[in-house]
C-alpha cells in the first residue's frame, strides 16, 4: 500500500497575541490517499484556513508531523520546502489571486515558469487545461476581462498545470453565485478525478462537502468524520 499523499499527525498550532496564546489546532490527524477527495467544514473562525496553510507548509506548526508523498516536511527549511510544494501541491483560493498583468494562458503557465523553463509541452498542457475548463476561446483575456467564475476556472487550471499529487482548495466557491459555484465544484471534482489528484476542499457548503469521498468537520481544533469514508 503506497504512502498517503498527505499525512498529518498531531498538528498543533496557536497564535501568539498580546493577551496570550490563541489555540487554533489542538492535534489534527489527517491522511489523504492518492486521488482521494476530502472536504473540511467548520464554523467561521474554527481554523479551516489555518489548517490548510499548515498542511501546505505555509504556516509553522507548534507540534506534530507532516509528510507529503512520504517525505517529512517539518524538518525542511522554508527555502527547501518551496520547490517541493510547487512540485507536489496545487492551490485554489477563494479570491482566485490571478496576476492582473498576465492573460489567462500566462497565468496558468506562471506555475510552470516558477518551477523552471517553459517547454512546448507545458504550453500545450496549459491550452488543454483551459479548454477543459471551458475557456479555450479566452486564452488572451486578462483577469479584468473575466467573470468571477471564469477567473476561478483559470485558477483551477493553474493549480493543475504541474500535475500535483494533491490540490488544496480554500473556499473556492466563496465569492461565486450558487450556479457558478456548482459549475466550479463539479469542474474541480471532475478534473481531480481525471488527473488522479487528491483533493482537500475547505468549504462552508454542506452540499459541496457531501460530494467528496470523505467529509470532515473541524471543531475545537480537531477533525472529526462527518461523511462516508
Amino acid at each position, binding site marked *: 500500500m503506497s504512502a498517503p499523499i498527505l499525512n498529518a499527525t498531531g498538528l498543533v498550532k496557536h497564535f501568539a497575541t498580546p493577551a496570550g496564546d490563541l489555540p487554533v489546532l489542538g492535534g489534527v490527524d489527517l491522511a489523504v490517499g492518492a486521488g482521494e477527495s476530502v472536504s473540511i467544514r467548520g464554523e467561521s473562525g474554527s481554523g479551516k*484556513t489555518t489548517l490548510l496553510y499548515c498542511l501546505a507548509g*505555509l504556516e509553522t506548526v507548534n507540534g506534530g508531523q507532516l509528510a507529503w508523498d512520504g517525505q517529512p516536511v517539518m524538518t525542511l527549511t522554508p527555502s527547501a520546502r518551496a520547490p517541493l510544494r510547487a512540485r507536489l501541491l496545487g492551490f485554489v483560493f477563494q479570491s482566485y*489571486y490571478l496576476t492582473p*498583468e*498576465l492573460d489567462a494562458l500566462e497565468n496558468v503557465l506562471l506555475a510552470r*515558469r*516558477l518551477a523552471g523553463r517553459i517547454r512546448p509541452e507545458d504550453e500545450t498542457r496549459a491550452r488543454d487545461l483551459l479548454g477543459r475548463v471551458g475557456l479555450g476561446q479566452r486564452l488572451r483575456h486578462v483577469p479584468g476581462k473575466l467573470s468571477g467564475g471564469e477567473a476561478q476556472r483559470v485558477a483551477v487550471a493553474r493549480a493543475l498545470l504541474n500535475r500535483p499529487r494533491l490540490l488544496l482548495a480554500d473556499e473556492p466557491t466563496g465569492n461565486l453565485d450558487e450556479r457558478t459555484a456548482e459549475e466550479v465544484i463539479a469542474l474541480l471534482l471532475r478534473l481531480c478525478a481525471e488527473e488522479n489528484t487528491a483533493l482537500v476542499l475547505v468549504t462552508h457548503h454542506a452540499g459541496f462537502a457531501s460530494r467528496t469521498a470523505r467529509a470532515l468537520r473541524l471543531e475545537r481544533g480537531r477533525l472529526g468524520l462527518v461523511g462516508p469514508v
Partner: protein
Amino acid sequence: MPWPVYLAFKHLFPTGRRAAGASARRVLLLAVSISTVIFVGMLVVLWQNGALGRLHAYKYTGLGSMLGHLGLVWVWLTLAAAFVALIFRLTPFFNAMSIMGIVLGVTVLITVQSVMNGFSHEYEKVFILAQGNLDIWAKEPIRNPREVVSLIKQVPGVKLAEPVTFGQVMLIYQDNPLVPKVRSFDMNSPDAARNPLAQSVGLGRFEDLDDKSVLLGRGIYSQLGSPPLGSKVDIYTPLMVARMKKDDVLMPKELEVAGVFETGWTGVDDTTIAVTLRTMQDLYGFNDEAHTIEVRLDNDDLAHTRALAEIIQQKLQPLNDERVAAGGPDAKMSVYTWEEMNKDQLQILFVEKTVMFYIMIVIVVVAAFCILCSLATSVVRKTREVGVLGVLGAQPPQVAAIFCLQGLFIGVVGTVVGIGLSLILLYYRQDIVEAFVDQRQLIEFYKFYSFPVQYRLTDFEEILGFTFFISTLAGALPAWWAARLKPADCLRYE
C-alpha cells in the same frame, strides 16, 4: 528568461495594454491636442518678446520659409507628445510618471554636460588658435629666437614654430581710438604663412604684411568703420609713453592696413591686430628678441601635446645650460602647453561643469524617490500576489528581484528616451537659443557665433551608470519589504 525578469517586465508593460485601433486614434488625437496647445503658447511667447519678428528678419528667407520651419517644430512636438501618450497607454500611470522623471533628469544632465563640454572645447580651440599648442617662455625676452626655433623643429610632431612678440597698443584711425592686443609674425620664417591666423586673411593678402603695414582683426576693422586697404593708422605703445615722460617727442608709428583676418572667434577677431616681428621689436625696443616661441603640432590631442612638451624641454636643455651660464637664471626657457597657459580659465570651466552636474543630478535623485514610492505602492497593492508567488514556489530573493528589476527597467526606458530627447534638443539648440536671445547678445557675451556642444562618451557612461544604479537602488527598499512578506500573511491580507 528568468521569471523575475519576466514578471518585472510584465508589471511595467502589462498584457492587454496596447495602443492599436481605437486606442491608437485616441493617442494620436491627444498628442495633436497637446502639441497644438504647446505650439500656440510658444508662438505667443515668441511674439511677445519680439522673437518672431527677429527670426523673420534675420534667419529666414521669407514668411513661407519661417512658417515651414515652425510647422516642422509643430510636427516634432506632436511626435514627442504621441510618444509620451504611448508610454502612458502602455504602462500604468505611476510607472509612466516614474519614467518621465528619469527622462527629464537624463535629458537635463546630458544637455547641460554636452553644452559645458562644448564651451570647454570652443575655448580650447580658441586657446590653441591664438597661442599654439605649446609656448616657450623665459623670464626675460628670448634672445636669438631663430636658433631656438631651428632646434625645436627637429622634434618629430612639430608642424610650425615661430618667434612671437605680444603686446598691447593704442590704435587711432580718424580720431577713433582702440586698444587692441598686437602679435607679430616673423615674415622671414616659412611657417608664418602656415599659421591659422595668417590663413584666415579674407580681405587683402597675408603676404602683403611688411614692416610698414598691419593686419586688422575683423572686429577691429568694423569698429574703425571699415577703412579701405592702404589706409593709415597710428600706433602708440607703452615704450613711446615712457619716452614722452623723459621729454622726448611722442611720435606714433604709422602703419598701412594691408589686410583683414577673420578666424571665426570673436575673442581673437575683436581684440587683435598683427604686425611683423621687426615692427614689434621696434615698437617695444627689442633687439633680436621675442617674447615667446609659438609651437604648433601635427595633432591637437592633449596627451600628445604633453608628451611633446617634455621632449622639447629635454631638447632645449643644452641650450638652456649655455644661456643660463651666459645670462643668468632668467634666461632659462620653459615649455608650457596651452592647458598650462590657461589653467585658471580651464579650472573655472571645470568647476562650473562639475557644480552643474551635481545640481542637475538632484533631478535624477528626485525621480528615483518617485520610483521608490511607485514600487512601494506596488508592493502594498500586490501583497496577495506576492503570497501566491510564495505558494507557487518563489524564494524571497526572487520576489525581491522583481521589484529591483522594475526599478532598473524604469531607469533603462527613461534613460534611453532621455538620451533621444537630449540629442534632439541639442540638434535644435541654436534655433531654441535664438528664439529667446538676440544672436548679437550671444556673440557679445560668449564670443561664439553659434552655441557650442560636444558629446563625450565618459559623460554618457557616468550618467547611464548613475541612473541605472539609482533606479535599481530605488527598487531595493520595496524589494526588501516584499521579500520579508510571509505567504500565509499575504494571503490573509485585506
